[in-house]
C-alpha cells in the first residue's frame, strides 16, 4: 500500500485539479477587484441611492454562506435567467467573485477613507476635477494601503473555492475525492491534498507580500492594516 506511486499515477489529474482551483481563485480575485473597487468608490463618494445599493449588496453577499450562494446561483438564479448552460466552473468562479467583491469593497473602502480628506480638498483647490483627484491622488495611495488587507483575501478565497465541490466543479477537492473512492486509500490521499492546499496557500501569500514590497513607496509605510 505505497501511496507515492498512486499519487504519481494520478499526477496529471491532480495537476489539472490544482489548475482548476487556481483558476477559480484568480478569476474570483480579479472579479472581486473589478467590482469591489467601483463599489467602494460608490460607497464613499456616491449619492445616497448608490451607497444604499452597495450596502445591501455587501450585506447580502457577506451574510450568506458560500454553500447557499453556490446552490442559489447554480440551481436557482442562473437557470431561471437563461444561463443554465454555464459550466459549473464558470458559475463557481462568478459566485466566488461576486462574494469576493462584497468583502474586497470593504477593504478598499477602509483604505480610501484612510486617505485624509484634506487631500481631496487640496487636489480640488489645485483645479482638479473630483474624478481626476480620485484617480490621480486618492486611488494610488488607497490601493497601496489596501494591499495588505487585500492579500488576506487570497487564503480565504482559496479555502472557499473547495466548496465549489458541492456544485460539481472538478477542482482539487473533487479530484481528491475521486482518488479516494477509486483507490480506497483515504487518509494518505486526504493529507496529501491538505498539504497541497497549504503549499498553495502560503506560497501565494508569499508572492503577494513580495508584490506589496515592490509597489510600496519608499519611506511611506503601507499603513497599519
Amino acid at each position: 500500500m505505497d501511496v507515492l506511486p498512486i499519487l504519481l499515477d494520478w499526477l496529471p489529474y491532480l495537476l489539472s485539479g490544482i489548475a482548476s482551483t487556481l483558476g477559480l481563485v484568480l478569476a474570483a480575485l480579479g472579479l472581486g477587484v473589478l467590482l469591489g473597487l467601483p463599489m467602494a468608490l460608490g460607497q464613499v463618494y456616491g449619492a445616497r441611492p448608490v451607497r444604499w445599493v452597495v450596502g445591501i449588496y455587501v450585506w447580502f453577499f457577506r451574510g450568506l454562506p458560500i454553500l447557499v450562494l453556490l446552490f442559489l446561483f447554480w440551481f436557482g438564479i442562473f437557470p431561471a435567467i437563461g444561463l443554465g448552460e454555464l459550466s459549473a466552473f464558470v458559475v463557481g468562479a462568478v459566485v466566488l467573485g461576486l462574494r469576493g467583491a462584497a468583502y474586497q469593497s470593504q477593504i478598499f473602502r477602509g483604505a480610501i477613507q484612510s486617505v485624509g480628506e484634506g487631500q481631496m480638498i487640496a487636489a480640488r483647490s489645485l483645479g482638479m476635477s473630483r474624478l481626476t483627484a480620485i484617480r490621480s491622488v486618492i486611488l494610488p495611495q488607497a490601493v497601496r494601503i489596501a494591499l495588505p488587507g487585500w492579500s488576506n483575501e487570497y487564503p480565504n478565497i482559496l479555502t472557499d473555492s473547495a466548496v465549489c465541490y458541492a456544485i460539481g466543479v472538478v477542482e482539487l477537492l473533487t479530484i481528491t475525492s475521486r482518488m479516494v473512492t477509486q483507490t480506497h486509500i483515504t487518509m494518505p490521499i486526504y493529507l496529501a491534498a491538505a498539504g497541497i492546499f497549504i503549499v498553495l496557500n502560503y506560497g501565494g501569500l508569499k508572492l503577494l507580500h513580495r508584490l506589496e514590497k515592490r509597489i510600496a513607496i519608499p519611506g511611506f509605510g503601507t499603513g497599519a492594516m
Partner: protein
Amino acid sequence: MEQAVFFFEILLPALMQGLVVTLQLIACSAPFGLALGIAVAVGRQYGNPVISWLCKTYVFLIKGTPLLLLLFILYFGLPSIGITFTAFVASVVGFILCNGAYNAEYIRGALISIKEGQMVAAQALGMTRWQAIRNVILPQALCRAIPGLSNEFIYLIKYSSLAYMITVIELSGAGKLVATKYFTYTESFAAVGIVYLVLVSITTIAVTILEKRVAVPGTARATPSAQL
C-alpha cells in the same frame, strides 16, 4: 394559493427543523472553539518553546486547509484508522478545530497589545506568572478581542452549512432536500438565505450590545465596530 401552501406547510417546517440542527451545531462548537482559542493563544504566547511551537503549527495547518477538506478527513478519513464519528460529531469537531485556530489568532493579537509593564507590575505585586496572565492580562485581552471573536462567531454560523456536505441535514441541507423534491430551487435557497441573514443580523446587534456592556469606561476602542 398553492405557493402559500408550499411555503407554510412544506418549506417553513422543513427549514425550522434544519434551523434547530444548525443551532445545535453552533451551540456545541462555539464554547469549545473559544476555550481552544484561549488555550492556544496563551500557549503560543506564554508557553515553553515546545508548546509554543505546537500551538503555532496547529494554527498554521488549520488556516492552510479548507474546512470542507478537514470535515472530509474527520468523517471519511478517520474511520480508516479506526476512529469513527457520527456526522454530527465530526462536524462539531471540525468546527471547533477551525474556530479555535482563528480565535487564537485574534486573542494572541490582543495579548500582544497588552503592555509588558502590566506583567512586570503584577509580578512585582507578588502574583505568579500564571496568576498575572489569568487575572490581569487575559481579562483585558479578551475584551479587546471581542470584535474579532464575534466575526469568527458569525463565520461559524455561515460555515456550519458545510456540515451538509458530510450528510448532516441542517438548515442548508433541509433547503436542498425541499428544493430537489419540489423543484423549487430559487425559492428554497432564497428562504434559506433569509434565515441565515436573520441569524447573522441578530448576532451583529447582540455583539454591539455586548461590546458596550463590557467596555471599560474611558478606554474607547479606536477600531470600527464588528462587521459581518
